[in-house]
């Protein structure tokens, strides 16, 4: 192992380089990728230039222990203009590792559409003209074969091909590299798909110890309460939980309860639409919930009888798209929600960001800052699924200057049309569905990829309901979570298994792999990974102190009432202060000095 496969699309060549130096220190996943992204990217590289690399890094323990399933993709994000960092489950990490690689780095660009086909050490760049324009779902159907071992097929959709800044990459039909625009990077390289088939082994140094530990962990995963939620209703259980707490964003965060919540809840979906649950290889949980979306054949074939459902598709659902394309848009019909998710799947679009954009468009139209000329005659109205589907299509087709701006993110659109106050983005990325309090907003603002999964900020909001938690404690919590999650992600651990893999368990597991680590040593490693990523962000022009929080955040209702801007600033200041005391320079020096003088810590 310790192998990096480099594929160059310009030269249509490949090579393998062993980097024990990287793996022995940073294990895998974001640890290794955080070093490679700096090594492989010249400062200021245009995300869409051939020099802009894509790094896929599988976790260090993928295949060996339960719930170790993740691959990170790192790239320069067209959406944020700095770090692109996105995680996916599915077959990819296992296929890569069984093919004999820990990391795949893609360089260059092709003039014609191409795909990368990897079967163990057989690596080819092949023409893919006939795949161009196909949905990622059809690409998966086309490329999946009866191979030995494990195969993974990943692909961008038309959104990526058209360089939509939040075009995603769909992994093995139901998983995603979402959020920060990896699909558009594929599109810019004319890279339609990657198929990896791994039939080799992951050698074990101490198989007996692995077996014993595996059994212990497997029992914990399957029989304890720790992961039961993810199998039962999945994260869709959050819809009702958050609605009850008054933390479910609705009407573009103007409201925090949604009257239609019950109809699109996880409970209702399980009752009406849930068809199957599936897993990633190596995880017995099956958190991927698939709903059946039924549609009728075209009316002319049914002679006017509309109720004959003849077409069925499987649509993955979980909490985030249910908030983004459901409660936040006042969509209260399960089939409407599924149609919106499915359209995003077919086009290869990030469902969360699409929800954020559609909510802004609806409000901007209400406010009169955009009009029918901009929308080409479509009236965006809350819960109007037909209008929303048309807007999505027009955006991917870059139909006019308005839709082209939408395709570049809400910072670009709101800069041109106004409505920054209700453009619900931080660090240019759409907010996740948690109107829970300070932790979630501050967490997404400071996180390296501006995700709620960067540091679980929403969970400290929950704790703060029972006891007062001050700004400094919130900042400390975010830092601790962030540092620790980078350790877990470097091992390939699924976020949902974080309660299984405590610091002590991780030390035990690493010991079996021949690595002596302490909880403190691991935290230090996580910190270093975070620092590396932030150095890349700063190198590419990111400044934490320049980041804006949309005004709506301070008028939205949360379980902590309305949020206070000063308290939020105080959390960010504590955060910056603490990170800088670790030696991470977050601001230009003169700015830091000025801030320090006025800092009341």
């Amino acid at each position, binding site marked *: 192992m310790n192998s990096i496969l480099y594929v160059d699309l310009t030269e249509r060549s490949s090579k393998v380089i062993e980097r024990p130096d990287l793996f022995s220190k940073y294990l895998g996943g974001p640890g290794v990728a955080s070093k490679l992204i700096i090594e492989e990217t010249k400062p200021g590289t245009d995300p869409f230039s051939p020099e802009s690399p894509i790094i896929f890094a599988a976790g260090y323990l993928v*295949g*060996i222990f*339960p719930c170790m399933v993740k691959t990170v993709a790192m790239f320069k994000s067209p959406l944020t203009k700095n770090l692109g960092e996105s995680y996916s489950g599915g*077959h990819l990490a*296992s296929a890569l590792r*069984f093919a004999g690689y820990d990391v795949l780095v893609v360089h260059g660009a092709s003039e014609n559409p191409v795909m990368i086909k990897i079967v163990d050490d057989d690596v080819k760049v092949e023409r893919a003209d006939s795949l161009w324009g196909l949905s990622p*779902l059809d690409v*998966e*159907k086309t490329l*999946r074969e*009866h191979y*030995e*071992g*494990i195969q993974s097929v990943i692909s961008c959709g038309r959104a990526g091909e058209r360089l939509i800044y939040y075009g995603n990459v769909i992994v*093995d*039909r*139901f998983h995603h590299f979402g959020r920060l625009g990896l699909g558009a990077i594929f599109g810019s390289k004319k890279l339609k798909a990657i198929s990896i088939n*791994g*039939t*080799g*082994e*992951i*050698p*074990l140094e101490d*198989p*007996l110890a*692995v*077996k014993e530990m*595996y059994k212990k962990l*497997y029992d914990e995963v*399957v029989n304890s309460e720790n992961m039961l939620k993810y199998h039962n209703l999945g994260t869709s259980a959050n819809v009702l939980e958050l609605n009850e707490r008054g933390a479910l964003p609705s009407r573009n965060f103007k409201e925090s309860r949604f009257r239609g919540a019950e109809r699109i809840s996880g409970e209702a979906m399980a009752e009406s639409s849930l068809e*199957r*649950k*599936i*897993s*990633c*290889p*190596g*995880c*017995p*949980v*099956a958190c991927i919930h*698939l709903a059946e979306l039924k549609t009728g054949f075209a009316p002319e074939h049914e002679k006017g009888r509309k109720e004959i459902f003849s077409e069925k598709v*499987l649509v993955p659902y979980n909490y985030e798209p249910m908030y983004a394309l459901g409660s936040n848009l006042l969509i209260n019909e399960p089939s409407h929600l599924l149609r919106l998710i499915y359209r995003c799947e077919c086009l290869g679009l990030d469902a969360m960001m699409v929800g954020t954009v559609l909510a802004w468009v609806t409000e901007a139209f209400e406010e009169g800052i955009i009009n029918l000329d901009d929308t080409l005659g479509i009236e965006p109205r809350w819960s109007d699924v037909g209008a929303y589907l048309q807007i999505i299509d027009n955006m991917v087709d870059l139909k006019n200057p308005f839709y082209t701006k939408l395709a570049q993110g809400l910072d670009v659109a709101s800069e041109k049309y106004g409505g920054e106050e209700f453009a619900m983005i931080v660090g240019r990325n759409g907010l996740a569905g948690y109107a829970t309090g300070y932790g979630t907003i501050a967490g997404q603002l400071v996180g390296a990829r501006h995700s709620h999964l960067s540091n679980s900020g929403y969970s400290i909001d929950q704790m703060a309901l029972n006891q007062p938690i001050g700004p400094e404690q919130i900042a400390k919590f975010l830092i601790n979570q962030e540092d620790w999650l980078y350790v877990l992600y470097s091992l390939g651990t699924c976020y949902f298994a974080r309660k299984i893999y405590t610091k002590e368990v991780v030390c035990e597991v690493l010991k079996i792999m021949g690595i002596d680590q302490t909880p403190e040593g691991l935290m230090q490693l996580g910190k270093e990974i975070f620092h590396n990523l932030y150095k890349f962000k700063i190198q590419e022009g990111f400044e934490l102190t320049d980041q804006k929080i949309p005004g709506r955040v301070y008028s939205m209702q949360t379980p902590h009432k309305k949020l206070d801007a000063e308290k939020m600033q105080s959390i960010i200041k504590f955060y910056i202060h603490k990170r800088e005391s670790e030696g991470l320079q977050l601001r230009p020096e003169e700015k830091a000095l000025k801030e320090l003088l006025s800092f009341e810590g």
Partner: protein
Amino acid sequence: MRFRIEVVRPERCIGCYSCVYACSRHLFNTVDPSRTAVFLRTEGSLANPFMPVTCRFCKTPECAEACPKDALQPLPEGGIMLITSRCEGCETFDCITACAIRALALDKKTKFPVICDKCGDCAKYCPHNVFKYEEMK
């Protein structure tokens, strides 16, 4: 005691590969999805159901009949036993192709067909009881 494994509820399979990995750990002390006696197959897209496959322990096993060297011996209770001294790991794959459900694979390292030893680990590590593992009467 003689045991038997059977895939009884394939529709419950979630595609977690826990059975495949367990088999590979048991038989070869490694993790290798192609060194295993249990297979997880899909037809086309992953949107289609998974099909876990194990040896069916046939009474008159075709794989054994197909072997030109009589290296696979039918067992009285069903299934086969491999006589390694007779197996030449021939690349005609006669035994492999004889099995209609392709429950037999040639191990790329040892060049012998991988034979299920009925340890039951696939069933033990299945979270949804896709397999039945029981003593034969």
